[in-house]
């Protein structure tokens, strides 16, 4: 069961594709207001863990307990993929999944999809409730854009914006649902050194200002070591080690997974 200060607890998670065990008996937990990193060499199953948490994949075994906003908890495996965001858990994608033909503001507004109470008929006829909701949520989206310093681009099309901006827009979209846990899939992919540094600051700022936890999967060691409170290393779908950035860096198992064992080097 979930401890007092935990928002997400994964226990004995396993998923198999044919004969391949992509994730094998993995357990870890994330605390409140924590930035938690999930690292591992290529093909370690990081993104698969992500997809299991967000129910894009249904795990074969294991439970994923998640803290609800009202204090209770639920097993995410019992929910459909489009219901996850309603619980307060929202994700980004490795290759930035935005709608090119829409403006920056409209893309952020997609994140408010679940907040609309007005029925389709009310919206089709633009009755007062639909009008009010649209206006209030639009103001909220503008406020988030302002906080992320991209307000001046709100009416531009997403198509053609630089990659760093797209990442920010995607982050803004996740913030629309007032999440308690944001999970970021390789947020530093495709960013240069300066942008990565700014991203690290942004992630910390989001955690503080929007009062949420962050789980990130990352290749970029600088970002992970810089920003994460705790890190979990996995390899071939299995748990290797957990601890602070320093502990992980000196852990022999992790070094072996990334760099190969000493015997191999000699050979």
């Amino acid at each position, binding site marked *: 069961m979930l401890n007092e200060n935990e928002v997400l607890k994964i226990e004995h998670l396993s998923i198999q594709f044919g004969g391949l065990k992509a994730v094998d008996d993995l357990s870890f937990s994330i605390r409140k207001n924590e930035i938690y990193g999930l690292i591992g060499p290529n093909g370690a199953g990081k993104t698969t863990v992500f997809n299991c948490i*967000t129910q*894009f994949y249904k795990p074969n075994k294991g439970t994923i307990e998640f803290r609800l906003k009202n204090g209770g908890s639920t097993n995410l495996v019992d929910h459909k*993929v*489009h*219901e*996850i*965001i*309603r619980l307060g858990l*929202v*994700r980004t*994608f490795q290759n930035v*999944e*935005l*709608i*090119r*033909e*829409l403006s920056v503001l*409209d893309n952020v*507004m*997609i*994140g*408010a*999809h*679940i907040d*609309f109470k*007005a029925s*389709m008929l009310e*919206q*089709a*006829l*633009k009755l007062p409730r*639909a009008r009010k909701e*649209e206006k209030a949520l639009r103001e909220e989206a503008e406020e988030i854009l302002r906080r992320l310093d991209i307000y001046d681009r709100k009416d531009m099309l997403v198509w053609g914006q630089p990659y760093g901006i797209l990442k920010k827009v995607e982050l803004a*979209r996740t913030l629309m*649902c007032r999440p308690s846990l944001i999970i970021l899939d390789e947020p530093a992919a495709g960013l240069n050194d300066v942008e990565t540094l700014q991203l690290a600051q942004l992630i910390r700022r989001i955690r503080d200002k929007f009062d949420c936890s962050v789980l990130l999967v990352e290749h970029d060691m600088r970002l992970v070591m810089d920003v994460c409170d705790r890190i979990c290393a996995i390899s071939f779908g299995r748990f290797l080690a957990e601890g602070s950035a320093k502990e992980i860096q000196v852990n022999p198992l992790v070094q072996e997974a990334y760099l190969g064992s000493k015997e191999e080097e000699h050979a």
Partner: protein
Amino acid sequence: MNKVKTQLNFKALFKNPYVQFILFGLVLSTLPLLSIQFSFIKSAYITTVGVALIYAIAALGLNLLLGWSGLISLGTAGFMGLASYISAYLTVDMGLPFEVALLAAILVPTFIGILVGLVSLKIEGLYLAIATLAVSEILRKTFEEFDQFTGAFSGKSAKFPQLFGMFQLDRGSTYWLIVFILILVMLITYNMVNGQIGRALNAMRGSEAAAQAMGVNLLKYRLVAFALATIFASVAGVLYVHFIRYSYPSSWTLKLSLDFLAMIVIGGLRSIYGTVLGAFIVFAVPDLFLKQIPYFSQLSYTLNGILIILVIMFYPNGIVMIFKDIRLWVLKLLKKGDRNHVK
């Protein structure tokens, strides 16, 4: 000073999309009056333009499906035809009021449309196109064979609509009814695509994964897209049969479904005015002008093909974008003129 202010208000008023829609409707509805005033506007033009507007209604539905939601359908003609026969049968053979017939003629095809939407979760792209084509062809074959209901090849006749059991419309006033419903459909489409529903449909087209992660229920919105497209096609079918007053199986072939596709591609994917423009280009222009020229009347297929190629090459977002370019061009010219003036 005061004058400037009222002028500005006028400008703001004209920029309001709702005012624009209503003005557009008013312009369209002057046609019957013009045909009385000026002899060069033949009254037959009313029929052609009226049918073009009816097609625009169905094409708007298809645009919601293909343009906004990224789902294809080659079944528009079949659904439109089904609605036309149901309305004709209920008003003529059963003697039911127009409004009841309209409702029934929307509900039955929409039910079938929703079933197709259920199928669309499993198949996509070309396969979905073939599946919808199959539904449409089954319907067309039914129109040919089920003759107590459809009159088979001799067709089914209907009357101009009678509203609320009191107002018997004639051709001109049915045309006005068509304009009124078109504007209503345009307004509803505008409201929907610029709100939560439109964003959900856009998200579904752009990235299914992102849509799901943002809480968009794919099944629900696919059904919504198919239901809307079929409702619009059904409304168009009912208006058609009560305007032309005949429905033949040969009207509801694959050619018409392809024409709808041509209308939205040529006019403008995801553009409301573009769809209406497309309906005029694909249907009204050949009917009004090209028929006068010998040898050209049979060439509408070829012309559509050439137009589609040209549009995709030069205006991938539809001919409606030409107006934007023209506006920029005129503004540029005006600016130049101003500068010369100052010199």
